[in-house]
């Protein structure tokens, strides 16, 4: 579980995060949603330790990140898997080498053990025959799946995904969403996804944190989001006519 308490982050005089407190539960897909500029990416980068923050605490299973030594931070990071918005695959390595990289860095496994593990995770993300391809030869959806395979290859305790569906067609986006949820369930990982894809919110949002202007404006789940009367959330989530109709139907069905 990840606990965030009163997190403040500024760039110069501009305060981006204005005291966010929330928790991200183990074995659940936790979504951070909000408009562009609401502070989602900054929040995620603070969670990952890529940005320092002025005030507040972030604790991973009770360990406060800012109080850890550099070595302890690096050890904790070895337990974190991250799927970047642009996948961030290493261009100079093949897909198999990309996935094998965390194993080479953090385990003492033999080459054959690492190869077996790479085969397993690539199969898990439905990429059985892409081992020798370079990232530049893979489609956007394939790159995202390779990034997921790389993130989970070392059995992480925490999985972070920054806009995992951006730039993908709706069908591939659903495949990626389902994959993340299955992996979260299967390995009981604490998963945090930064998204503004409404399909993801409805499909896999077991916990949803809505940010607005650097503040937590609402939190709930993909079930309670239908019933909420929080104006900020309804304005954002149900901004399209399609989702307005879906919401109306859902409420009518449940009355």
């Amino acid at each position: 579980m990840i606990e965030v308490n009163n997190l403040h982050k500024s760039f110069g005089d501009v305060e981006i995060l204005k005291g966010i407190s929330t928790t991200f539960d183990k074995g659940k897909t936790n979504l951070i949603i909000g408009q562009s500029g609401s502070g989602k990416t900054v929040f995620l980068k603070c969670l990952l330790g890529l940005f320092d923050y002025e005030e507040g605490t972030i604790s991973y299973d009770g360990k406060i990140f800012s109080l850890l030594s550099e070595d302890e931070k690096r050890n904790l990071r070895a337990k974190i898997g991250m799927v970047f918005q642009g996948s961030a695959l290493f261009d100079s390595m093949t897909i198999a080498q990309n996935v094998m990289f965390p194993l080479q860095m953090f385990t003492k496994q033999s080459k054959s053990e690492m190869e077996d593990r790479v085969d397993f995770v690539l199969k898990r993300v439905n990429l059985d025959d892409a081992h020798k391809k370079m990232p530049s030869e893979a489609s956007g959806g394939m790159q995202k799946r390779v990034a997921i395979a790389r993130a989970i290859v070392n059995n992480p305790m925490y999985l972070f995904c920054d806009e995992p569906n951006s730039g993908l067609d709706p069908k591939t986006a659903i495949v990626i969403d389902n994959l993340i949820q299955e992996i979260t369930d299967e390995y009981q990982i604490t998963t945090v996804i930064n998204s503004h894809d409404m399909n993801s919110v409805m499909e896999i949002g077991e916990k949803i944190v809505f940010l607005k202007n650097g503040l937590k404006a609402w939190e709930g789940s993909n079930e309670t989001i239908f019933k909420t009367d929080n104006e900020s959330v309804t304005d954002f989530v149900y901004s399209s006519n399609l989702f307005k109709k879906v919401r109306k139907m859902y409420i009518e069905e449940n009355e």
Partner: protein
Amino acid sequence: MTYLHNIGAYFLMIVEMFRKPTKWTVMKQLILKDVDDLIIGSLGIVAFISFFVGGVVTIQTALNIDNPLIPKYLVGFATRQSIVLEFAPTFMSIIMAGKVGSFITSSIGTMRVTEQIDALEVMGINSLNYLVFPKFIALLLYPFVISIAMFLGILGGMAACVYGGFSTLEDYIVGIQTDFISFHVTYAFIKTFVFAFILATVPSFHGYYMKGGALEVGKASTTSFVWTSVLIILLNYLLTQMLLS
């Protein structure tokens, strides 16, 4: 203030580069790859430039010695001195700042833009050690490149001298052996090691700390070339003052 900040950040980068080393099995592969990219990959252009510049130095020296009282072997002597003291260590380093330096800045800069460096950091890897240290080790072989530049420069001079009819082969060989001071070679290699350090770290600094997108990668490569060249020229002056005067 920005310059002071950058100087501080550069030295902090160097300290961080030596901290928390990457696993040796991985580092070994990175070093071999960088030796291939930075050293082996530069031999062709170094050989080509050295041979022909050696020839040009010889022709110009020969053409400027028109006094019949000056012995012909001085052409070889002047070529050797120019190549060993300045051309091979200093001017070849400026050429390498363009070739190797731009490569380092653009490759690390692209990794920054595409979040590959963030990916390394999130994994708990010391990205500076992972990216810069192997380049520093690979460039410790840089004196080997400069030795080749010296040899080919003198060889190119010999070819131009003999086939251009400026002096005989015997005169040229006597010239390159005349008043040979072995410390001049030591001085050249001391400079080469210093320049190798600059070539590995300054372009890495500009790539690692760049901000923005593809356009900024190009700008960072240009800035890196300018600063690497400026530092090489300044350090060349300081080292020459300290070691030879």
